[in-house]
């Protein structure tokens, strides 16, 4: 019986293109967009040089060091600035037209004129600060030996054994989201076992198969499809997009599978609890998981931390947060204690979802449908 129901459920689910789209294609597409948008961040590709001008006056022409240093950083492949040497009026005009980020006037201390504050303006200021501070020191000691400048004194030590990687957080959220999109499968399973929800369910209910067995077997099909979809997502992330999950790939896999089961079961209990039309069920499901994702910091990281600081209980009651937290802590901590705590809580949620669904779905009798 199991094989029969399982096989036909697989066929049914596989033909439901909309659910397949949301649970598999959409996360894949999102992952691709993430990668496209983020690929350039952090891979040391240089920013384009900043357009600046320096006012060509007496002070500037007398200040040989400033002149040399400015020319040095404005030439070559790895230059910081595209420098123009102009008169004061021209500099002002260029600034007004937005053609330069700022202009410098060689006074002591050097004056920087900008039209707004911004990243580029800040880089100019930091450069000038550094120049003046170093030249002030160099003058004081009449230094000849500049080799010591620019020697690195800081050494980055990552928090855990895993490489620190800004992209990973995005992909963790994506995996958590994909897990909870699995709730669409759970929703369908309940819709098609509760006789008052759909005609397919009514037909299944009059069959001599035990309802619980039929339901469990169908749920197995849903779990199976969703887990396979998530595996495809993981394979795509690792092999095609080359996302590096570090050495703990096995745990990521385990988390994904538990997450998938949690997602599908979550859909089932929501669908069983709410006895309204499909559209409303989907709306509630999506809204609820969106709110959970939001509180788990999927849209903004800071939300997650303010929740866990101000309302810690909420962060443990939010299944999406448990999932993202499990993935983050894998990446963050050497010890696995936090990870297992999250997984244990998540498993408890799954059990609650299962028993809840069971008590709602069982022994339903209908006078009329």
């Amino acid at each position, binding site marked *: 019986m199991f094989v029969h129901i399982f096989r036909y459920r697989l066929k049914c689910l596989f033909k439901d293109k*909309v659910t397949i789209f*949301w649970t598999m294609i*959409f996360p894949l*597409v999102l992952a691709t*967009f*993430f990668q496209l*948008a*983020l*690929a*350039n*961040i*952090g891979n040391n590709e240089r920013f384009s040089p900043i357009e600046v001008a320096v006012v060509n006056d007496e002070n500037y022409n007398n200040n040989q060091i400033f002149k040399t240093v400015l020319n040095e950083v404005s030439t070559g492949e790895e230059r910081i600035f595209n420098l123009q040497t102009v008169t004061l009026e021209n500099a*002002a005009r260029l600034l*007004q*037209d*937005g053609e330069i980020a700022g202009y410098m006037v060689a*006074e002591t*201390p050097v*004056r*920087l004129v*900008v*039209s*707004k*504050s911004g990243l580029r*303006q800040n880089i100019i200021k*930091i450069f*000038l*600060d*550094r120049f*003046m*501070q*170093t030249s*002030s*020191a160099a003058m004081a*000691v009449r*230094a*000849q*030996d*500049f080799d*010591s400048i*620019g*020697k*690195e*004194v*800081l*050494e*980055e*030590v990552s*928090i855990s054994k895993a490489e*620190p990687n800004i992209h990973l957080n995005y992909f963790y959220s994506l995996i958590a989201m994909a897990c909870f999109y699995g709730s669409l499968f759970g929703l369908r399973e309940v819709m098609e076992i509760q006789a008052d929800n759909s005609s397919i369910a009514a037909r299944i209910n009059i069959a001599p198969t035990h309802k619980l067995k039929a339901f469990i077997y169908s749920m197995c099909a849903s779990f199976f499809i969703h887990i396979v979809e998530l595996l495809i997502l993981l394979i795509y992330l690792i092999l095609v997009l080359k996302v590096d999950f570090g050495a703990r790939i096995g745990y990521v896999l385990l988390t994904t599978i538990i997450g998938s089961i949690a997602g599908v079961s979550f859909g089932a209990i929501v669908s069983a609890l709410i006895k309204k039309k499909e559209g409303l069920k989907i709306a509630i499901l999506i809204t609820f998981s969106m709110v959970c994702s939001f509180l788990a910091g999927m*849209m*903004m*990281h800071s939300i997650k*931390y303010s929740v*866990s600081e101000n309302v810690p209980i909420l962060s443990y009651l939010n299944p999406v947060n448990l999932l993202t937290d499990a993935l*983050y802590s894998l990446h*963050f*901590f*050497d*010890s696995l204690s936090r990870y297992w705590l999250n997984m244990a809580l998540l498993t408890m949620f799954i059990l609650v979802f299962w028993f809840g669904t069971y008590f709602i779905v069982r022994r339903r009798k209908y006078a009329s449908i």
Partner: protein
Amino acid sequence: MQVFKLCLKIIKDNIPTLMIYVVVFLGVSILATSSMSNESKEMASFTPTKTDIAFISDETGPLVDGLKEELSKVANFVEIERDTEALQDALYFRRVTYALYIPNGFTERFMGGEDVKIQKTTIPESYSSAYVDISVEKYFDLARLYLTNVENIAEEELVSKVLKDLSVTTNVELYDTRANKADTSYANFYFNYLSYSMLGVLVMGMSALMVVFSDKDIKRRNACSPISTSRINMQFILANLTFAMVTWFIMVGFCIMFNFKNSLTPATLYFVLNSFIFMICGTSLSYLIGTAVTNQEALSAVCNVVTLGPSFISGVFVPQELISQSVLRIASFTPSYWYVKANNEIAGLTSFGFEQLESVFSSILIQLGFAVAMFAVALVVAKRKRYA
């Protein structure tokens, strides 16, 4: 105007659903905008917000104390326990975003001219930690300079000289242009974000309208009515435009309301103009989607891909400066790219003559070109599908 009236009726019936979209997208826009503009302010400000750091040192002495003094300009010190677990915890919950560890014997080895290192641990997504990096590097750069050039310099003397040098800073002056007194970063982010949220509402809303008309029987009934097809189409488009305009008005209105004190500038005018043109673009895109896709379920799939995709690659969620050139080249085939580009340029302007606005106008013209092109394709598709 029967068709027009019918469209308005359908829209009216759908108002509750549409309002949900508008409210959700507005909420997301406002939240995201305020968080993004704060983040960029942090990035852009000349006086950085102080970072919370953990300063762990195995030794004390003038050199280390001097570093601490210099760092206090850019950082707040947070006391945490000295073991890995506690440090990981503190970083994980963002009690600190940066940790420095100075090993025992550092001063001695540094003063001896050895190449010693300080260990740092950061969480990747914090901008302000760059300022801590710079401070530490500057401090030791100058210390080394004195060390190599002045023989037998005492530690105290070295530190006091370094700190004195470090107190010299650039005078930053804002060029006085009355036009740009207001802060445009909020508007810039909001209007960029609008390309995602407005497109979402337009595609969702208009497709709900078009699905009704794509019903085979209704289509046939309309085809045999005494009103000519072109008139039906014109009224239909008019209704769509009305809907788009109301949506645009609400969404732009909210931005101005939330950001009123910074809105009375010429920049706002161009932001609004740019978004209006983008709205027209969005209308023809929705019209195209509405005619090409007639299945309600497929619509929401297409809608999500079409609104999210360009937003990612053309700089709505991630600033254009940070996206690689090749991706941007792909993005330039979408109107969103030109819309965002124009917005960013408007935000950077200090005066608004024709010369300065030239490239903004060309971006706007390109968007109009997209609108016309998509509309033309939509008409072809509609003709092909008429009796299919």
